[in-house]
């Protein structure tokens, strides 16, 4: 979440005081990303330092009496940011994916049960968001959009778990089939029947990308 660009977007409507910016930011994001006053002023100071906003009033003060307005450079920066897709090219380090992959290697681990524990937790989170949406004001567009985004994100993780569950079952069934072309002798642990490739998934390498870290089990 870029507070910096959200501030520029709010200032693109016209000059505003810091406190009002904070209130409007929270309203725009459906109060899902609250800000403290310190964050607002730190961001504004940096924007001013970079020539993206200008301020009126006492230059030594960051108090509520100080109004900010966007500069031409700030408007250009905002436009560029809005049109630039976030970098989604590299798979994120996903803790949940790691857990499932690691579970496949642990002798005796019930992977289906582990998957179900995560599925249940995710669905419980989705129930909470859905209830917030249901109780909310249907006319509150920002809130609805932000909650939908969270629901779709969680849903995609549940879908991955479902697909993983099915894929693991299929692999296990194939390995146990009398028609399977077994490379390993019978009697091995079922968890060893399908070795995990060197990488977590069949991509060249999992690249670290701290900016994109996706937390699936904890916010």
């Amino acid at each position, binding site marked *: *979440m870029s507070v910096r660009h959200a501030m520029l977007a709010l200032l693109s409507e016209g000059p505003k005081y810091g406190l009002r910016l904070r209130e409007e930011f929270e309203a725009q994001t459906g109060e*899902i990303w609250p800000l403290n006053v310190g964050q607002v002023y730190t961001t504004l100071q940096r924007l001013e330092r970079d020539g993206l906003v200008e301020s009126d009033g006492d230059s030594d003060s960051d108090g509520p009496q100080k109004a900010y307005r966007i500069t031409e450079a700030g408007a250009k920066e905002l436009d560029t940011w809005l049109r630039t897709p976030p970098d989604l090219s590299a798979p994120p380090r996903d803790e949940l994916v790691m857990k499932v992959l690691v579970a496949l290697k642990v002798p005796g681990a019930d992977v289906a049960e582990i998957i179900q524990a995560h599925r249940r937790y995710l669905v419980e*989170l989705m129930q909470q968001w859905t209830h917030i949406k*249901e109780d909310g004001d249907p006319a509150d567009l920002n809130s609805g959009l932000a909650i939908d985004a969270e629901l779709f994100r969680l849903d995609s993780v549940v879908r991955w778990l479902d697909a993983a569950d099915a894929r693991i079952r299929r692999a296990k069934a194939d390995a146990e089939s009398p028609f399977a072309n077994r490379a390993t002798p019978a009697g091995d642990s079922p968890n060893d029947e399908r070795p995990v490739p060197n990488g977590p998934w069949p991509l060249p390498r999992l690249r670290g990308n701290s900016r994109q870290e996706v937390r699936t089990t904890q916010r």
Partner: protein
Amino acid sequence: MTNMIELRQVSKSYGQGDAEVHALHKASLAAIEGEMVAVMGPSGSGKSTLLTIAGTLEEPTTGEVLIAGQSVKDMSKAKKAQLRRRTIGYVFQDFNLLPGLTAAENVSLPLELDGTSARRARVVALKALDGLGLGNRAGHYPDQLSGGERQRVAIARAMVGERKIVLADEPSGALDSANSEAIMRLLHSACKDTGMTTMVVTHDAQLASWADRVIFIRDGRITDQTTPLAGPESLLVKAASTNPELDR
């Protein structure tokens, strides 16, 4: 609170010998008055079988089904049919509306089959359609309605006559996300407002998340269920403690 739907150790098998398939294995669950329960599982997990057995459309191989506290095990066919007409409504993914009847006629049909006069049934049907925002669509045939409208007609048909239970099989499977949400919002508010009990079976987590409780089914066995976390507002509190990243 009364258990409106209760399954006790219900098993269902099809075929015999080597060809025997166990669709359900000792499934037990209960849904109380006013509750919306979702049964979630992949294709072939037995969730639709569970729904048809809960709706008395099929009999279990072993185990017992109770509707509003009453066992259906020894009920006569006629009594079961009456129970289905008066107490249980069904909603299906593909709507199952009769194409030769208007929306109002589709909704009034179950009432008329139960002995209500045509005139009275029409009044009730129109009221039900109106309540779901379809007052101006009463005279339309199913092929003149959008998918979302057809499903709302199907819900009106399921709920009409103040039925206490609605059973829905992937009720928004054929709809886009906005219409899905409208359908689930409608069903959930009916549970809260009228005390109706709804059981929805689905593979879709977004749809299931509308339920008060989600029961998970796998290979014909009920494996797990959600437990309510701290109040929904806890997510907002959590979000408040997760400060947005400050750009430098």
